[in-house]
């Protein structure tokens, strides 16, 4: 039998409850993950879609692509897969989560090349625990009935479905490829690895963290305050200072300043952590 045509489905309907920000919009190397993932899968499938919740149907970032809206909002990722099969029942679906910034084309190609058409699905085993990874997987049209049955039983965990179903499981060629990003700290680490160019002042450029800033001498006068607490997307003191130059009218050029973090000299490129106290020190003049 000939293999059913493979379509792509990027799941972006997650609620990002731990990240508290839309994971599809998080930027890596200056580009939203939504766009990175669509660029990755588009050449590998016949047609690629963005899976959305009903209320995301007019989000311009998502509607830049063809979308498929969930039929039900209470099924999590299975709701996206269900809606995809509802729209195109005779095709197979390459399903990807949108919180996999390390996923590379080689890993997706490997999955496609080893696709077991006669089975319900083809997926990778987690490098961490050996369990199936349902959100970087190919679902054959033959899986639809089994998935609907699973949903009808009130179940919605695709990993458990895979563990019990007739699923081809592969070892990951790249152990990191499916590392996902759920929290602000994970995003911080991932974006540092991948090299985001997001800057502190750019809205939506990264997760926000709360920092305290202390001002001294001329900077205190320019800022009009000795200290303040603020939420910032800045990842480093350098990005924070750039933001404050704009927002507080700080006039001193950074090359003349030193940075202190938590009452100790620090580095302009040192990653900022939630709760840090940052001070920008003008040239000193004791004695």
């Amino acid at each position, binding site marked *: 039998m000939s293999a059913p045509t493979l379509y792509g489905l990027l799941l972006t309907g997650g609620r990002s409850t731990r990240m508290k920000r839309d994971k599809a919009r998080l930027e890596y190397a200056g580009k939203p993950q939504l766009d990175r993932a669509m660029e990755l899968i588009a050449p590998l499938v016949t047609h690629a879609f963005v899976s959305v919740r009903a209320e995301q149907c007019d989000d311009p970032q998502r509607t830049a692509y063809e979308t498929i809206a969930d039929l039900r909002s209470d099924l999590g990722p299975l709701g996206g897969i269900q809606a995809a099969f509802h729209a195109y029942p005779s095709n197979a679906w390459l399903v990807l989560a949108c919180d996999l910034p390390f996923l590379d084309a080689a890993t997706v190609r490997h999955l496609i090349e080893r696709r077991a058409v006669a089975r319900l699905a083809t997926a990778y085993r987690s490098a961490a625990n050996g369990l199936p990874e349902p959100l970087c997987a190919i679902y054959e049209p033959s899986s639809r009935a089994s998935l609907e049955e699973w949903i009808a039983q009130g179940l919605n965990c695709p990993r458990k479905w895979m563990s019990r179903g007739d699923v081809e499981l592969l070892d990951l060629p790249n152990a990191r490829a499916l590392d996902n990003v759920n929290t602000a700290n994970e995003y911080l680490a991932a974006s540092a690895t991948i090299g985001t160019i997001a800057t502190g002042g750019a809205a939506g450029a990264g997760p926000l963290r709360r920092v305290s800033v202390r001002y001294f001498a001329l900077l205190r006068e320019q800022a009009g305050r000795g200290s303040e607490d603020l939420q910032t997307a800045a990842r480093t003191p350098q990005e924070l200072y750039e933001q404050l130059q704009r927002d507080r009218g700080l006039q001193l050029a950074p090359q003349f300043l030193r940075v*202190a973090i938590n009452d100790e000299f620090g580095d302009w490129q040192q990653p900022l952590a939630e709760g840090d106290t940052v001070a920008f020190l003008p040239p000193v003049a*004791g*004695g």
Partner: protein
Amino acid sequence: MNRFTLLETPLEPARLLDTLRHPSCGGYATFEGAVRNHNEGRAVLRLEYEAFVPLALREGERILAEARSQFGLERAACAHRVGVLEIGDLAVWVGVGAAHRGEAFDACRYIIDRIKHSVPIWKKEYYPEGDSGWVNCEQCAAAPGSHQHAKR
């Protein structure tokens, strides 16, 4: 023993020197920095010192500890004023006790130089014309074009 302090009250050199006394010291050297009535060609009326206290204390202690080990000192101390100071007021006092005069002189010079260079303390000068300026800061504006680093 090292001690770096920031004081809002006038420095008392005799009392500070007494804290250095030790039987193994054959030489004491002290430096007193005072507020002078002019700077860089302008008359100065008074100064105001500001410190980033926790980091200034930490950095000051580090400098004293470095000097102690580098020069084999028995004792090293420094007291620095914060707040408004009038002409003639002592702004900083450095004192060391060593076995011999050579290390004492060298260490005293080393400490005051390092303190002026890296302890987060700033001073603002008030001028007879009514204006004022932060020493070493005023030429550091992020203006377009070339930057002239402030003199230290």
